[in-house]
């Protein structure tokens, strides 16, 4: 298998392990958490690490480790669902915007402009008005917020690919638009899209914490990483490690995703494969 070459790189392997671990914890988190992630302990708030609470406690005396473990699931769901929505729809819009009929493309991209300039906060507020706040509606809102970014990245890359002769060659063979898109354009614009996707994953998780103050998001007291980071901000002077742990988890995850993204990106480029 071609992919086996990827696995031989230690960093890539390590990243795969991290991702695998995260997926596993997302499934079994509640069972391996040492404490009830919701249990308050008013006498032990904002404690540092101890043998009882490995990573210390938060402002309610809740065990940070347990909250991290349980918080993975909503975090992963939000990150994945929103990035998938944004990537699929955004890329589709971008490619059609770049490759489609001139009028159609023009209107799509101007529509994307509109979406882009529509502040996230309003969209989020609106969503709160319409939907129950929760993981799924949050993921959808965040996904929608990131669609136009993908669209613009995809469109610009498409424009660039269209200038090349092999696209002309496809046309000369009588290829249908779908074929041109999937065989000629998509593989050749995948590199920036992969990068954009890895960026979006991190941004989605952080945005989740940003939106929680509007009441959109994971409803407290349920934990999620973004929300923990957002809350911990207020306690940075008292309990500095409170913000460090979830940020570290996030950074680890994003790093793993990025390394995999890079590896995938390089792997997709045949010229780099054996170099």
């Amino acid at each position, binding site marked *: 298998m071609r992919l086996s*070459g990827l696995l031989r790189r230690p960093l890539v392997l390590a990243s795969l392990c991290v991702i695998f671990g995260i997926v596993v914890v997302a499934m079994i988190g509640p069972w391996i958490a040492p404490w009830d992630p919701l249990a308050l302990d008013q006498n032990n708030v904002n404690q540092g690490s101890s043998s009882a609470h490995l990573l210390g406690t938060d402002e309610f005396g809740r065990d940070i480790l347990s909250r991290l473990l349980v918080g993975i699931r909503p975090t992963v769901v939000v990150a994945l669902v929103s990035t998938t929505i944004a990537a699929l729809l955004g890329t589709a819009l971008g490619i059609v915007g770049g490759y489609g009929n001139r009028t159609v493309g023009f209107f799509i991209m101007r529509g994307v402009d509109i979406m882009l300039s529509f502040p996230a906060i309003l969209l989020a507020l609106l969503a709160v008005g319409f939907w129950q706040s929760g993981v799924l509606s949050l993921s959808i809102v965040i996904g929608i917020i990131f669609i136009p970014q993908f669209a613009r990245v995809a469109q610009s890359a498409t424009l660039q690919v269209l*200038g*090349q*002769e*092999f696209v*002309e*060659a*496809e*046309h*000369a*063979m*009588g*290829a*249908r638009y779908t*074929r041109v898109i999937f*065989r*000629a354009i998509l*593989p*050749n614009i995948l590199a920036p899209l992969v990068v954009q996707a890895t960026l979006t994953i991190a941004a989605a998780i952080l945005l989740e914490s940003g939106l929680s103050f509007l009441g959109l998001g994971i409803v407290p007291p349920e934990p999620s990483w973004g929300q923990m980071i957002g809350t911990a901000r207020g306690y940075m002077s008292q309990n500095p490690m409170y913000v460090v742990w979830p940020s570290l988890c996030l950074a680890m995850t994003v790093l793993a995703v990025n390394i995999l993204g890079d590896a995938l990106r390089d792997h*997709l*480029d*045949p*010229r780099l494969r*054996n*170099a």
Partner: protein
Amino acid sequence: MAGHDVLKIEDLSISFRTEGTLRSAIRNASLTLRSGEILGLVGESGSGKTILSLAAMGLLPPNAMVTGGRVMFEGTDLLRAGASALRRLRGKRISMIFQDPMASLDPIFTCGDQIVEAILLHEKLGRRGATARALALLEKVRMPDPPRIMGSYPHELSGGQCQRVMIAMAVACNPDVIIADEPTTALDVTVQKQVLTLLRELNAEIGAAVLLITHDLGVIHEVADRVAVIYHGDMMEEARTAQIFSAPKSAYTRALIASMPSMSPPRTRLPVIERDAKGEIVSVVKPSATVRAAPAVTGGATLLELRGLTKTYTLQATPLSAGREVRAVDDVSLAIPARSTLGLVGESGCGKSTLSRLVMRLIEPDSGDILIEGQNLAGLDVAAMRQARRDMALVFQNPYGSLNPRETVRDLIAAPVDIHRGGKDRDAIVARLLDAVGLPKEAAGKYPHEFSGGQRQRIVIARALALQPRLVICDEAVSALDVSVQAQVLNLLHDLQAEFDLTYLFISHDMSVVRHVSDSIAVMQKGRIVESGPAEEVFERPRNPYTRTLLDAVPQVGTMQPAAAEA
């Protein structure tokens, strides 16, 4: 005349890393380049000529590995020299003309910028001086309207124009060594002559040494002092030109000379080089696999008819600068009978590629009709056009550019099958085509960048022939092929024509090839057809002065060296 040794390649061995294994590409090659001489390097397509010359520049692709040997230039080993030392040599002392001119120019700078930059890298002339020199150089390579070329981007130039830009850059700083990798593939014979003269002059004036890689034995014969022959990564022999042609030592060389198209009468099968039962390399004429007789040229229905086709480009150096109109195709009318081959020859930049794109409607004509069996393509909608393209194929002049870098050769060749037949029998078809164009089966799993120039060209040809379309437009389709592979491909085209009633529009600057394949000829100059008619007539009794000039400029080898044919 022979000067001192400037560039010495000693015992050079190069391998490629592919999928974890090492594949040897060049084995123990040695070559010596002396000042003031032209050393011809000939060999089969894919034999390692380009790799050898890249090694000499220290520019091997990242997956190539030098497994042994040295490349000595003035006492330094270029393979081990530091980056800054190399930088000072490159361009100034050693320069290279790359095989694929389109891919070798930066697409987003105007040609003028690029030439001027190349000059300023090594000479303190100032912008104005450099621009003047650039214009002079373009003049020297017989470029029409140099100021316009200076302001054009590479994609706005014809293949031959790009090639000449490359040549201009390579000779700009009067280097001691010029490595010219197929420098004239896209040039018509008159310009080719001019370019060769330019190289010769550099030879004489400043004692430059030229390594001339070409498959065109006529060119070798005319300009090379010595010739080296490479076959499958092994140097076969090295001798003075006359000697090679009169008394070739290695079997391969003998076979090579025997396979030249000019050796054979027009519209017959050409000899190809093979190993016979005993493993000897020989030149043989293999009979066609098909039984049908050669087509009758006359009396057939007209397949393609062009009426008053016109195309004008607008050139703009920046979005704000004033536009200039270039009439690339000017009121062209042509007719090609079914089952016949029309050879289209003409000056480089006269509009041949534009014409072929127009026929495919890859660009929209300003006016005129394109009739295929009476159906006017110019009026078709997208869906109908898509359907019509099933029966047409275009072999692009620039093979690398027309290959999607992210698809394997299998997918590339099978593309028409996938498009029009839902991928039916694709693997079998790919295997057959690969074999027909002389590529190994393993090639199917590789990507375009892993191939030599000639190999890429064959991939494109294979793709064009995948569905046996009614009309095949070959835009310089065999220009990068050595005579043997060229023969194989031409034979294939011939056989297919006989078997499936194909019609060819064959664009080439190689008169002997054109002569060989064409039933009728059209001669183009400055966007217009200046002469057309049956092949013999045009070749024997050219009426137009430009046609005559063209024919006169053809390098003659076959007629001068009748002895070679007997070998």
